[in-house]
């Protein structure tokens, strides 16, 4: 390849710039206000419907769930914060009404443990790779190479 390093990498740099640009644009916090309907839906989807199994208030069709949605919308219009609205329901039904355990108290474990496990796992793999890279590479004997060659033709 007679290409210079710069021309070889150029397409990748352009690509990287596009991807980073898109990501930054999507992740950038915008000042656009969330509509009341969207906010209601978001909060409702994090509350358990108390008189059905395994459904959120947002997904349930019971009249209590409908009343809850209406109540959340009213509270939003009265200017209550998300946390305040959640607290109203926690006070009424207990902690178990939250489908997403709060990140305080015991609930923090359910968030932290998987992340810790993934980090430890990734660290372990990285460590093993490092150890392997320090070990001398096994050199294939001629017999090995021959076996590989014949095996290749088999496959």
């Amino acid at each position, binding site marked *: 390849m007679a290409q210079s390093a710069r021309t070889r990498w150029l397409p990748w740099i352009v690509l990287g710039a596009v991807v980073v640009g898109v990501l930054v644009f999507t992740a950038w916090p915008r000042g656009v206000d969330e509509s009341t309907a969207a906010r209601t839906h978001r909060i409702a989807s994090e509350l358990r419907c108390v008189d059905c199994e395994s459904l*959120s208030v947002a997904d349930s069709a019971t009249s209590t769930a409908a009343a809850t949605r209406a109540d959340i919308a009213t509270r939003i219009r009265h200017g209550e914060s998300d946390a305040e609205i959640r607290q109203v329901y926690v006070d009424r039904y207990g902690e178990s009404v939250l489908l997403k355990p709060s990140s305080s108290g015991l609930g923090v474990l359910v968030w932290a443990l998987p992340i810790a496990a993934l980090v430890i796992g*990734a660290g372990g793999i990285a460590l093993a790779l490092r150890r392997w890279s320090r070990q001398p590479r096994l050199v294939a004997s001629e017999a090995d190479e021959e076996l*590989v060659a014949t095996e290749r033709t088999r496959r």
Partner: protein
Amino acid sequence: MRAGLGILGIALGVGASAVGVFLLALGLKRRNVELIRAGRRCVFVVLAAALLSVFAMEWALISHDFSIKYVADNNARGTPLLFTITGLWAALEGSILLWVLILAGYITVMARRFRSRLEDPMVAWALLVALSVALFFFVFMAAAANPFKLVDGTIPLDGRGPNPLLQNHPLMAFHPPMLYLGYVGFTVPFAFAMAALITGRFGEGWLADTRRTTLVAWGFLTVGIILGAWWSYEVLGWGGYWGWDPVENASLLPWLTGTAFIHSVIVQERRGMLRVWNLSLVLATFCLTILGTFLTRSGVVNSVHAFTQSSIGPWLLTFLGVCVVTCLALIAWRADKLHAPGRIDSPVSRESAFLANNLLFTGLAFVVLLGTVFPLVAEAVRGNQLSVGEPYFARMTTPIGLALLFLMAVAPALPWRAAGGEVLRRRLLIPAYAGAAVMLLTLLFLTSTLATVLAFGLATFAVVAIFRETALAVRSRRSGDHAGWVRSTIGTVRGNPRRYGGFIVHLGVICIAVALAASGSFGAKREVRLHRGESATVSGYTVTFTGTHTSKTAQKTSVSADLKLARGGDVLGTYAPAVSTFPNSDSAIGTPSVRTGILEDVYLTVVSSPNDKGRVTISIAINSMTLWVWIGGALMAVGTIVALGPTVRRRIRVRAGDVARPAAEPVREDLPPLGEEVGV
């Protein structure tokens, strides 16, 4: 009579599996092949016993023999024939019966396939382990979950009938058996992994012996899960197909570890590495199927599917404990022998990609397991109740899923051992550009949700990478063989069915990922109250309520609302979501009516049936790309079938018998007989 026949079957099953286990153990101890052969014959008796019990139960169900408690509870004279037959798996006891039948079937296939290798202790041990599992389930049925228990007192004139949700859709006939075929199938690789640990031969022999069964089980489990999602979508009426319900999670857990195994096994086959890891994954997969059964069948978790039978909890928990302790003890005992030779040369190689894949899949499994059992742990430890639901799982699994999509795009292009930068640049540039273009277009025209933008982009990246790899292989074969495109494609696929079958499965997964991302970002839902003749418009669809009609059968009474659906000026048809009441249930069951489209579904449900003024409340939901979940599932099934096919080589230069040892694995104690190694 029928009960007697069934109990006879169960007793025969207990006896035959116990005798089989005993004979195999004795034969292994005395190294007596005759005893092992006799033990193997017991397998067929076990199958006959299971068939007899299932036959007795079906007979009892079809003839409405309400003297049997199970039949009285899960069948009624008005139950249609289809749901009478599916009554076998409508409740705990019957589903254990189905479990036992499928297990006996798998063991029989195993006993037949390895009939010529009985002197191999590995095979005898595997049979012994599998028969022990069967023995547990027969004893469990006889002692704690007897499906042939008679009713107390007088025989009722009519039974209660199955749970309304379980007699509302024909998918009930397919979803549970498929799921069980998957669940139970993992017993076979489990048995062989245990045998490998016991005999101390952890080479690649047991992998080759179980590769096909593992794939079959995995395929069935995949189809079972997808059908379950479909059933949920068509029956439950909340508009979704996956709710992170404990029972759904229980079916997903072994699927995740099983998927990790299917990938990491390739590393062991090629490089002889990751032996303990693969053993652990197989053992974990089996233990997770038992854990799932325990969680969902013992009533410890609340769920739409849970049968709430707490008397069986201790049995399953004990069995789970025995399995886990045995597995761990065996691994600890064999620890000195398990260290595999070999190393991974570079972080940028196919092996490393598989390692990352395994990390992510086990991470996913851990998230799902933790989310499912955490409420139980929190309650036992602190006495306070917590819920872990959809928002948690969505938040935790989305990044892992996106990382897996990325790997899916990159990994097939990575060479084994070590990759040069040049190779990667060449192989991945076009797919990466396609992915970036789709990301940009999604952002410009569709949505600015980060996860969706990333999912669409990565999905494109992966699809283009797959097609590029395949197209290159087809092109080279085409120029070599001077054949047409079609023939070359078929030849390429048949030349390496595992690779291309895997690609098809990947395409299916990508379809599902795109559908999930779309359903999270697009769509609308509205509840409207309509008088006859009124209409409502949601996202350009106009729904007009034209009237109701009532149908009444012995099974149920349904009131359906006729809704004329139109878009713009085009009438798309009349849809009739219904609310049904069943004589055996106090609450009404809604049945949605769905107009399926390529890009969006219109999902109509009756929220409340007509009131005295004839007004109905209906819910109109526009769901994005749901069809692609089912298409993805179908592709995954097709891919699995392709991957199961035999390898058809282009030219045979060297006879297969001349070489048997891949160079990368210097120690290989147990070679299977020829022919099995390649195709099994």
